[in-house]
């Protein structure tokens, strides 16, 4: 199973699309590792600097409809090879979300009001997430503040996380 803990990167925008996560010009790569330097290269978001912000982060938190656009699994892979295995957002595009769990990664959904509160409390501060998969809780902490919030995972998504992805799961079963 993958690691779902670490420093949080706040991306304060809705509709962040897969072309922004990993532009098509890098789709000629045939290994996941080769995508590592290009994550979020085309993201248009004030104050975001990929070179500065990505390296130290292991968790992404964002707003609505995260990962819309293309079906490219290169988007989760680009996160994975940057040691980001968990994204937390209000909602996701279907294919992106499925791809995350298919890779044994997590795309966690929280209520818009909870996301808004997390942004208000923690964005701009060094914040760490600790995930408890058994208890289904996310614990955020910064120097000034902390908060524990529960999340839900469908049984299927949980099974995929535990099987480290869909290939392992389906091969055993079908």
């Amino acid at each position: 199973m993958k690691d779902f803990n670490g420093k949080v990167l706040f991306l304060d925008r809705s509709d962040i699309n897969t072309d922004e996560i990993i532009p098509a010009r890098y789709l000629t790569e045939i290994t996941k590792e080769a995508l590592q330097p290009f994550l979020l290269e085309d993201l248009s978001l004030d104050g975001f600097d990929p070179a500065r912000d990505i390296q130290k982060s292991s968790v992404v938190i964002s707003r609505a409809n995260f990962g819309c656009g293309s079906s490219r699994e290169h988007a989760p892979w680009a996160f994975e090879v940057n040691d980001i295995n968990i994204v937390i957002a209000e909602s996701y595009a279907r294919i992106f979300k499925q791809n995350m769990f298919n890779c044994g990664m997590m795309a966690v959904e929280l209520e818009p009001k909870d996301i808004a509160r997390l942004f208000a409390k923690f964005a701009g501060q060094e914040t760490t997430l600790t995930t408890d998969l058994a208890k289904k809780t996310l614990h955020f902490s910064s120097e000034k503040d902390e908060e524990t919030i529960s999340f839900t995972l469908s049984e299927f998504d949980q099974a995929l996380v535990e099987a480290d992805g869909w290939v392992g799961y389906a091969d055993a079963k079908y």
Partner: protein
Amino acid sequence: MGKTIAEKIFDSHKVDNPFGDIHVIRLDAVFCHEITTPVAINDLVARGMDRVFDPTKIKAVIDHVTPAKDSKTAMQGKILREWAQRNNIVDFFDIGQNGVCHAIFPEKGFVRPGYTVIMGDSHTCTHGAFGAFAAGVGTTDLEVGILKGVCAFHYPESIKIEITGELPQGVYAKDAILAVISRLGVSGATNKVIEFTGNVIDKMSMEARMTLCNMAVEAGGTSGICAPDMVTVDYLWEFIKDEFASKDEALKSYQAFTADPDAGYTEVITIDASTLVPVATYGFKPDQVKPISEMTGEKVDQVYIGSCTNGRIEDLRIAAKVLAGNNVKAGVRGIVSPASPKIYSQALEEGIIKTFMDAGFCVTNPTCGACLGMSNGVLAEGEVCASTTNRNFNGRMGKGGTVHLMSPASAAATAINGYISNSNLYVTGDK
């Protein structure tokens, strides 16, 4: 309660229902291209599972960058080519036979009403035009599809979009689907199937229905879908004539995949076609849509006509009609990519290619290249393109470039004027 088209297809393909509303369904077709499949192939090889569930149900094409532009894209083609060969995948389309996946696979009769189809490509929803459930998936889903012939989905909910009346002249399926997306928003149909119905759809060609279904994913939709009817049967007849005694019999059989009158939808939207006008996108999201009349005057550097949305023969005919006797504005680059070799030769025979060339267009081979900024028409920083494609994301056709999505008629008119324009087909009503 009755069932929607998607529900009927799911119920006839169920393999397993492991959890809640997750259904694992049997696949009738798995489509592959050279961008998202090689990684799946490499992973299968690494796992010692280099096999396919049924080589006759897998179809593959090199279409995104073809001919290869550099060593990396050449390697992607090579991996796909060699895999198809060693796994006896007969329907593999390489240089000379290849074209944009969502144009070439329907054209070969690979999609039938009631089918379930996946591909590692978000615009797989296009094939729903045939009354199929067709969904774009990521590489892992594709990999399992190749290996096991199954895929997992949430049991589908559907949105019904009914378009009634008559499309005004000069207004096309592209204008209609952009209007629908602007209404639903980019996530309005997430996890849902969009079922298109109404007398406007009944009258539409398969090409126009494919344009509609193609952009379902731009509203977040899993698949677009149109009920199979005689138009579908006519299109498929050359491929199915040995299976059925008559077209009526084929239609009767396919009608198993039409929606029941009391089927349940999460939302029903009725659009009066007479209210539709030629539109284009602004900004970087496909739901940012305005009437072209409000954008007229915005200068462009390039006009692109092609793609899985609007690179079919009907699209080229419409654009050629606007272009005939005109020239591309000096300083504007016109590029057209007929979406398949069949479309290309038809366009040649009909004199359409000559019309494009006489107007000053560059005619490329069938490929996706420009649409996703990989080859054959990439934009430079700061450039603007009027395009018949389906995505106006920031940098989609080249880093720092801007894309305005529109119909082939509007794109052709824009090429002539050098700024975003309605076609004379709309202005004069000449169709």
